[in-house]
């Protein structure tokens, strides 16, 4: 008994016949399938009598030879006949891979699609902002519709639970700024200006900006994922049917909570950054804390604090709106939730940085520098 497929050409009554034998299955086929495909000896018909076992793959190999050479088969019985019939019926041209496009055309097309998508997103975001404003207006007229419990719950997730990570991040950033500043300023013998650097940079820019990035990563993404999966589970449709406005129930509490908590978290982050920087100054530059604080009070203007605190709620609003907007854009499948969550974070951080630049120009032109 043969363990695999084999073939031979023999002369019967003066005519060449291709005899297939053995096990014509995927496992037994080996290279016979390809050998047969390349075989250029002519034969008159194919004899299948000696085939011991066959599956559809063996049948396919026979079928394609028969089709190309247009020769008859003999000894087609039992399984062989059944499976040959099966693959004959299934013989249709099928494309395997997706259409291939020329690279430069694909790049052009991608740029076009990305541009259209960006415009579309911008339009959607503006529309969403409008919808938030309308919902906000109606809540102001009917304050009883504001969901205090939901807001307080968001305070906890957005604010309280973020304290540890924001604090740790700020502390380390304080040390890094102080260290880098000290290294540069030491060249001029002006190490004491490290305190100016820490104090002003932190209150004006870094405290708020780093907090915004952290909140976008922590809460903006969570908003998108939560609302996105609610959208998939048709919870949002269910809300609308019952007469609950998803804007009031889901979006506004998140936006309120983030607007309120961003300044608080930002202020907290600034203080911790200053502590981190102060600690470095004390240990490395031997500036005692009391001198550090005195110097801080001299150089940090109250407007520096205002600059930070005015930006914070705006950033908070942007982060929350981006998160909720992207969450609302989810439709279709689970994969979409992941994509929109990423989009929410990227969009929020991008917008925060763009606005930060505008704020910088604005504050210096009104003389707050």
């Amino acid at each position, binding site marked *: 008994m043969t363990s695999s497929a084999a073939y031979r050409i023999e002369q019967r009554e003066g005519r060449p016949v291709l005899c297939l034998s053995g096990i014509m299955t995927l496992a037994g086929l080996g290279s016979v399938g390809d050998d047969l495909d390349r075989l250029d000896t002519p034969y008159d018909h194919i004899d299948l009598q000696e085939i011991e076992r066959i599956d559809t793959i063996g049948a*396919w190999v026979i079928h394609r030879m028969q089709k190309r050479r247009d020769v008859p088969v003999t000894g087609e019985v039992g399984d062989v006949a059944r499976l040959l019939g099966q693959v004959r019926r299934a013989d249709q041209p099928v494309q395997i891979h997706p259409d291939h496009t020329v690279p430069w055309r694909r790049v052009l097309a991608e740029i076009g699609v990305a541009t259209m998508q960006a415009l579309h997103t911008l339009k959607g975001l503006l529309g969403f902002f409008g919808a938030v404003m309308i919902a906000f207006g109606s809540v102001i007229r009917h304050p009883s519709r504001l969901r205090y419990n939901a807001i307080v719950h968001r305070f906890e997730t957005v604010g309280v639970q973020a304290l540890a990570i924001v604090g740790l991040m700020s502390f380390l950033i304080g040390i890094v700024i102080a260290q880098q500043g000290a290294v540069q300023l030491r060249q001029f013998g002006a190490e004491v200006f490290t305190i100016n650097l820490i104090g002003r940079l932190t209150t004006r820019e870094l405290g708020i900006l780093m907090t915004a990035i952290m909140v976008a990563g922590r809460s903006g993404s969570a908003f998108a994922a939560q609302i996105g999966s609610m959208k998939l589970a048709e919870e949002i449709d269910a809300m609308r049917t019952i007469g609950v406005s998803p804007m009031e129930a889901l979006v506004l509490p998140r936006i309120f909570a983030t607007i309120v908590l961003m300044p608080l978290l930002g202020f907290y982050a600034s203080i911790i950054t200053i502590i981190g920087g102060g600690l470095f100054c004390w240990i490395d530059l031997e500036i005692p804390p009391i001198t550090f604080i005195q110097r801080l009070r001299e150089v940090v203007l109250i407007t520096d604090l205002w600059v930070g605190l005015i930006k914070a709620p705006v950033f908070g609003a942007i982060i929350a709106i981006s998160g909720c907007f992207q969450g609302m854009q989810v439709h279709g499948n689970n994969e979409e939730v992941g994509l929109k969550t990423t989009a929410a974070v990227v969009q929020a951080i991008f917008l925060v940085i763009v606005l930060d630049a505008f704020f910088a120009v604005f504050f210096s032109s009104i003389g707050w520098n």
Partner: protein
Amino acid sequence: MAAPEPIIRVSGLRNVFDEQVVHEKLDLDVYRGEILGVVGGSGTGKSVLMRSIIGLQEPTDGEITVFGEQMLGRADADVWRVRKRWGVLFQGGALFSTLTVAENVEVPIREFYPQISEKLLDEIAAYKVVMTGLPAEAGPKYPSQLSGGMRKRAGLARALALDPDLLFLDEPTAGLDPIGAAAFDELILELKQAMGLTVFLITHDLDTLYAICDRVAVLADGKVVAVGTIPELMALNHPWIQEYFNGPRGRAATAAMNRHAPQGSKKG
């Protein structure tokens, strides 16, 4: 119907999750060439049973043999040649989302038979796609572009890629419309007859049971409470079985069965 040779033999299977006992002393034989339907209420461990047999779930205790080979406690390399002989259709189709339908069908062949040439591979994928009733245009499409029914057919094409002797189907008709479900049942029956398959089929669909199953195994209380043809089961005095086959839906399916030809037509 039942030939004496069991393809799958499960004996004394026990599955426990935390405190919850899913299977306790479960025994089941599946014979060559039959379609065995597995039914049971939600949470009776139908999917867990299938996952135990195909090695995705390590049972707490018990023995499982497939094609006469002991499956439990063996290295992957040892059960490899058994794995080549079965195909699995998961509930949602479980197609690889980054590959086209035809490329999905090629995956198992590439994995187990790397010597197969690219040309033959493409040809095999092509006829498998057509064989499972998909239109030829579906070949280069990605799973996300397909409807639920087409995704199941594509999943079936992949399950059949290696021309398996044994096919596992997890609720193949769930989520399909009645016409699509009936067509899918017929396809399974047709392929089973053409390719000599043994089929392990988990289902909730009474119509599927009537239309294509040779025997039905009923799971309840952590074990197989009864196995047999539907008339045999209906003669039993088990409350769940009575409720299942003689409930309103069961009666409707029986009536539909008796009204029509022996196999095929059904209603939803």
